[in-house]
């Protein structure tokens, strides 16, 4: 495999790739409030890029600036090499799927979808053909004559998607695309969305507050907080190598230990944690000098539970009492009270069906916790 091939799914790694969307120093003020604060971002062709963050973090404002509904206070936006900053929304090669779907209530499904094509002055037969094709793709063939209020939530979502896709935009913007759907439909739609994206090769930019949605959908995620990017990376990078406590606790659950670096060598770091007192060994180096205060994140599913004490004393070991059990079916969540009255969260898959309702670990059992050197991550802020 040549070097070039290996970049196909990861264009941001390719030093020669031209970014498709280039955002340079974008800032947006609303009077005194700074919604988006000097953001730089490069998104590559065919990516499914997520902007993830809580409400009010500026993610929607950033998306609206890409669509052209908000004018940036400073900075420039390029799409496919063309400066889009001052171009009105109706001339941008970008379509948006609104959180409310924004289907025109007085038009049928067909008319809704054809609206954008008609604005481009496309020939009537061609419009009809393309509307039929896209309806087929989103599996709404028989519903073309219906009005939006005669459809279910999931069907409306697909009409909105079809309407945004039918113009074959260079970039599709999705504002909380799955937010209004129930859990089962959401999971199903997630995969449909990914299939459509890879089939059409359109660049997607998704705004979401749902970290699970962002994890499954995206090639890359940018986590936003108070108008800035906190961390940008692939779902795996963000989950496994968070850069800060904010990221570690925002994406998934985690246990955070506070401590100081006692040993820092090229291939591993040792941290002495207080509360509970223990040594944590991490198998990757850190740029932080010895003695610095750091935090260590250990994900609940990376911790092994055992009834028997470890044979040898080593780092990454704790002893505690099970204080709480949450049985979720495929896995269980345990809260283990360790020294210093700290609760450690551990999840473990239920591979063996409990006999007579007796779980492998019960309330008030003494248990031993351990994890690999590769499981923890050092956080400096």
């Amino acid at each position, binding site marked *: 495999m040549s070097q070039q091939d290996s970049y196909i799914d990861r264009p941001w790694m390719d030093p020669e790739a031209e970014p498709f969307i280039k955002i340079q120093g974008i800032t947006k003020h609303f009077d005194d409030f700074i919604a988006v604060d000097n953001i730089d971002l490069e998104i590559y062709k065919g990516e499914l890029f997520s902007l993830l963050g809580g409400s009010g973090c500026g993610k929607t404002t950033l998306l609206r600036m890409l*669509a*052209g*509904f908000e004018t940036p206070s400073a900075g420039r936006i390029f799409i496919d090499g063309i400066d889009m900053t001052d171009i*009105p*929304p*109706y*001339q941008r090669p*970008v*379509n*948006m799927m*609104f959180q*409310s779907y*924004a*289907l*025109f*209530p*007085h038009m049928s499904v067909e008319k809704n979808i054809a*609206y*954008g094509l008609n*604005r*481009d002055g496309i020939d009537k037969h061609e419009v009809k053909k393309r509307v039929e094709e896209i309806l087929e793709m989103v599996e709404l063939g028989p519903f073309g004559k*219906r*009005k939006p*209020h*005669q*459809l*279910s939530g999931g069907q409306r979502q697909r009409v909105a998607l079809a*309407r*945004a896709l039918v*113009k074959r935009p260079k970039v599709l913007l999705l504002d909380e695309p799955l937010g209004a759907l129930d859990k089962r439909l959401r999971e199903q739609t997630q995969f449909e969305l990914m299939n459509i994206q890879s089939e059409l090769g359109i660049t997607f930019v998704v705004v979401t507050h749902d970290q699970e949605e962002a994890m499954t959908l995206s090639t890359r995620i940018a986590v936003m907080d108070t108008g800035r990017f906190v961390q940008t990376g692939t779902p795996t990078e963000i989950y496994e190598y968070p850069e800060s406590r904010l990221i570690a606790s925002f994406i998934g659950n985690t246990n955070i230990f506070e401590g100081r670096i006692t040993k820092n060598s090229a291939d591993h770091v040792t941290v002495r944690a207080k509360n509970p007192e223990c040594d944590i060994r991490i198998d990757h180096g850190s740029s932080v000098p010895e003695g610095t205060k750091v935090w260590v994140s250990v994900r609940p599913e990376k911790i092994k539970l055992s009834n028997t004490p470890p044979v040898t004393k080593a780092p990454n070991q704790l002893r505690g009492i099970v204080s709480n059990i949450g049985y979720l079916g495929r896995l269980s969540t345990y809260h283990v009270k360790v020294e210093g009255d700290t609760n450690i969260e551990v999840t473990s898959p239920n591979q063996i069906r409990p006999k007579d309702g007796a779980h492998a670990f019960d309330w008030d059992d003494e248990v031993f916790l351990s994890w690999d050197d590769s499981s923890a991550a050092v956080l400096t802020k």
Partner: protein
Amino acid sequence: MSHNSKRSPFLVTMLCFGMAFLYIPMFMLVFYSFNYSKIVPVWGGFSTRWYTTLFESEEVWEAVILSLKIASISACFATILGTLAGIALVRFGRFRGHTLFSGMITAPLVMPEVITGLSLLLLFIALGDVFGWPEKRGFSTITIAHITFSMAFVAVIIQSRLAGMTQDLEEAAQDLGAKPLRVLIDITLPLLMPGMMAGWLLAFTLSLDDLIIASFVSGPGAVTLPMLIYSRVRVGLHPDINALGTIIIVVVAIGVLLAGWIMLRQQKQRKLEETLSGN
């Protein structure tokens, strides 16, 4: 929620008094319109002769036609201008002079009609002196006067409807390639249709109703229906005016019932559609 079957006699009495106060006068008007006697409060037996007189009176017909003409024309113009003003106020953001414009649009709502009428009269006289138009006051001046004050009502209706509507739909249309004028025609106006219809009806009713402003800006020969009724009653109670009043009550009642029936049907239709789609 359980319903208290024992109603307070006090409340029932008050309700009866209230209803009686509202409807007995109208009932009396209808009753006396069928009175044979020329002296209104004296019952002289059943008759429809005042209706016959009324239909034979050219003066009455002219007033009815003039009023309807003024009302429908002024309602159309008021709806167009009021809608545009409402859209400008809500959708154009906070432009310079927004507050002033908004205040000036709604001022006619609270301005005493005598003042509006008087000032319009002064304007028309001045215009007549300077430009030679209007040569004589009448149909056109009343229509213009009615447009100016009923426009304010339409603007307020449109404003409140637009403010309650999210901008998503208009943005979606723009996003799909529609220029602002196209968005207005394709999306905003169809969605505002119910508000515009309500505005038109209100403007129409206000115009039909108006006596004060019309009296100020009217000239010789132009007599609207309210002006006719008022001038006749001033001379003394005429039984044929009772007949006219009865006809107006019947027309209005039919209109209200019809509107209620149409709304009920639409509601049922919508409910049925929603049940069918499984929501």
